[in-house]
Each structure stands twice: as structure tokens, then as C-alpha cells.
């Protein structure tokens, strides 16, 4: 699994639960090193071992860890880049949902080695009802995506119900019901990079 994914997992665990917990996870998982490098490639078992050991140490399910990871990636003030890149998908939450079809290609454009699953948005008969189908070689992306989608709905200020519908054969499904697209104010987004606007870091 790509270092960006592993590194995200590390940042999430050590920022949320502290460096000591991360250290214990590393020990339990038998990684043999302390930190992931975001531009390296790692064996898949290493990623799964980290998730499983973290779940056990924190007495949570792996699914919860993954979902919280997804939320963290969008909402943490320390990782601004993913949220910004996702906001390029559109001006409204529905536009954003429509842009999920492009997410795989967008990911490849940014980092060609990154193996993301493909996402497909199905529009159900009733307005405001969608299903996101996530398909890829790695299990668990759907759970993380659920966290990402929840955080993005907040980001756009949309009121949304979402549910993980289960998965099999490499396909995972998330159902989405949009109750109100501008329920709250949402967070500001400017196309210009914050460092360009203010001279600060991203």
C-alpha cells in the first residue's frame, strides 16, 4: 500500500491518540520501523497489521478506526491538502458527489503510484438519494470513504444521512440521503491556495 495511505494512518493515530499509542501500535504490528514515509511503497500486510493492532489497543473495531481516519483526513486542521483537493470537485455537495466518478483519475494525476479504489455514484430514483459504490483491490476503503463523505457533507454545510450497506467481492456500498444541501454555513473554500493568499503554510 502506498506510503501516503500509511502515513495518513500514522498521522491520524498519533495525533488523535498520542505518540505513545502510535509507538505501541508499531511494536504490536511488528513493523520494524517507527515512521512511514509518504513517498515509499509498503507491503499490504503492514497497513492491515497497523489497523488491526490499533483497533485492539484502543478497543475499537477496525471499521471504526477506518471511518475515523476518513473523517480525520478531511476535518483535521493539520491535513488541509486532501480536503482542499476534494473541494475542487464542485461548488455544492451534490457537485462534489458527481465528481466522485473522477476521483480515481484525479488521484492518479496527482500521484501515479497511488492505487485508489474506483468510485461510482448511482442516482436512485428519488431525488437526493444516492449510492456510492467503491470498488478496489483493498478491503476497508469503503469504511474510510464513509468517514470522508460525512466530513465533506459537514464541510459543505449539507445535512445528510449515510449508511454503510456492506460489501462483497471487492465492492462496498454507501447509501446517501441528502436532506438539505445548505443546512449550515459550511467551511470557506477559495480556489487560491492559502499559502498564495496569506503567505502562510498549507
Amino acid at each position, binding site marked *: 500500500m502506498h506510503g501516503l495511505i500509511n502515513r495518513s494512518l500514522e498521522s491520524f493515530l498519533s495525533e488523535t491518540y498520542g505518540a505513545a499509542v502510535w509507538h505501541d501500535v508499531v511494536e504490536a504490528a511488528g513493523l520494524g520501523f517507527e515512521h512511514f514515509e509518504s513517498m515509499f511503497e509498503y507491503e499490504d500486510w503492514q497497513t492491515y497489521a497497523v489497523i488491526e493492532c490499533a483497533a485492539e489497543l484502543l478497543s475499537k473495531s477496525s471499521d471504526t478506526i477506518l471511518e475515523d481516519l476518513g473523517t480525520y483526513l478531511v476535518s483535521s486542521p493539520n491535513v488541509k491538502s486532501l480536503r482542499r483537493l476534494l473541494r475542487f470537485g464542485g*461548488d455544492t455537495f451534490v457537485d462534489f458527489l458527481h465528481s466522485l466518478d473522477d476521483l480515481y483519475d484525479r488521484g492518479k494525476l496527482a500521484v501515479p503510484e497511488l492505487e485508489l479504489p474506483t468510485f461510482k455514484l448511482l442516482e436512485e430514483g428519488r431525488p437526493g438519494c444516492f449510492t456510492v459504490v467503491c470498488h478496489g483491490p483493498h478491503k476497508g476503503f469503503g469504511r474510510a470513504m464513509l468517514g470522508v463523505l460525512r466530513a465533506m457533507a459537514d464541510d459543505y454545510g449539507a445535512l445528510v444521512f449515510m449508511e454503510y450497506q456492506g460489501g462483497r467481492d471487492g465492492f462496498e456500498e454507501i447509501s446517501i440521503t441528502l436532506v438539505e444541501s445548505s443546512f449550515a454555513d459550511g467551511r470557506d473554500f477559495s480556489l487560491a491556495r492559502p499559502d498564495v493568499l496569506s503567505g502562510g503554510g498549507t
Partner: protein
Amino acid sequence: MTKESLARLMPMHLILGLNGEILQCGPTVAKLFVDRTLTGQSFFECFDVNRPGNMASVADIIETIGTKLHLSMRNEHQTMLKAVGVALEGQEGVLLDMSFGISVVDTIGTYNLTIADFAATDLAVEMLYLIEAKSAAMNESHKLNARLQGAKMAAEEQAYTDTLTGLKNRRAMDHVLSRFVTGGDSFGLMQVDLDYFKAVNDTLGHAAGDHVLLEVARILVDETRSDDLVARVGGDEFVLLFHRLTDIDQLNDIAMRIIERMEVPIMFNGQQCRISTSIGTTVSDFYTEPDMDKMLSDADLALYASKNKGRACNTVFSAELLRQAS
């Protein structure tokens, strides 16, 4: 086409009357001029046409229709724009469609543009996405490079290998030599110096020089036993340590074999690289209490005696040499 439809397709369009008056403008252009209403103003008072030159009237624009126009806004930012025009039916004016070109990156910040300010089919937003994604990825790579650079320097400092030749380096030589000395082992020591190496480097270039060093390293390894130490301790200086070998005749033989082989020109890209070798030798048996620095400097003294004798020879250290030197 209605004004609204045109605005949706081309949010950065202008319609100019024949007299240069702006009759209509798209919503994004309007947003660029924060403190003035464009409609009704003269195009040439709001924009400079930089290319093609000498464009002073709408008639001039019609004259060159089809050519890309390079505009700059007449405001404090002097934002650069690209534009293309078509004549309206009945020749009553010109429709201009504009875009930011590469200046879009700065412009979106200056005018606080959003996704909605671009036509849905405009690739500008995709381009901004790409720039940002690539910058983020590049940023990660830079951080990684910096860390790797630090790790590499630390590793090199601790390394025992000369990266060019694969021979041991001075650190390794110091380490082994001090082990021999403190352990009371008997050993032979040779200082080997290449002659004319600098000339090869200067006339044939560094690649030739590097090639020669690799060949020299191969010869030195060939002519020594596997548990002898061959170290490159300077640009063209080598030290050989022979564990439990203090027989002067044997060491002389080894030295002569090395010298003979070094006399054979080394070929590099069809060019002959000629070098020669001078060697100075000493052995631990010469000393009641061998000392690292003393032995190295004695071997060095013997080496310079070889050079004085006309190079391509080996000199064994003796008290006589020391007397001559002082």
C-alpha cells in the same frame, strides 16, 4: 442567444459596439472590475491591447479577427488576459471571449474567484487542481529528499567503504591498523601513490580519472590476498595492510607486480591513460613498539624516496632514510 445563455457558456465575454462601447459583459469579467460598471464604458479605457500592436478601434479588431489578442486590464493589477473575437452578424459589433491563460493561478487569489466563476467546461479549475495536487506531492517528495539526504550523510560518515572504488576508506584503514597495533599483530604496510594521475584527470576529464581509479582498485585487489586490506585514503593515495606478512622479499614481489601492471596503459573511450606507481613499505617487525602514525609516516618517507628515484619502484623504510630526511 439570450444574455443569460451567453453568460453561462462564456462568463468572460464582452460585446463591443463599433464605437468601442462595451454593450454587454459576462459575470466573471464584471467581477474583475470591482469598483466600476463595465457596460457603457469604452473597451479601450478598460483594457490595453498588447498584441497585435496598434489596435485602437473596434475596426482594427475586426480587421485582425481570428488572431489571438493579448490584453491587460487597466487596473492596479494589470491582469493579463487572452481573448479571441468574432464579428457579430450584420457587422454591428464584436463578441470577445476572454480567458486568464497561465495567469489564472495568481488571478483567482486576486479576485477571489470560485468554481462558479468558470464555465462548467473550462479546464481552468482542473488545472488549478492539478497544480495544487502536484505541489502537495512535490512537497512530500522534497521533505523525503531532505530526510534521505540527512540519512545519507550520516551513513557516509559512518561508512567504511570508498563509494567510488568500493575499496575500504581511511576510516576503515585507521580502524584495522589500530587493531593490529593494539593487538600486537605483525603486519606489512604499503603506501601506494599514483603518478601522473592528475594529468589524466586534467587532460581526459573526470570520467577518465574515475575509470583509472576503478582499474587501479581492481589491480590492487587482484595482487593482494583476500584478508589483506586495500584502502583508498586520498584522491590517488592508497594504503595496503598485509596481516601477518612482514617478509621483505615477498612484499617487494607484490609491490613489483603492482607496479608492472600499473605501467600498462589503461584504455578509456579509445584513449590511453598512462599512469605510474610509487610505493613505500614498512613492516611492524622494524619497531619494538609499533605506532600507527609513525608507521604511516615512515612508509610515506619511503614512498617519497621511490618518487625521487624516478618513480615506478618500491622503497622499504630504513633508519638510513630517516637520517637523510633530517
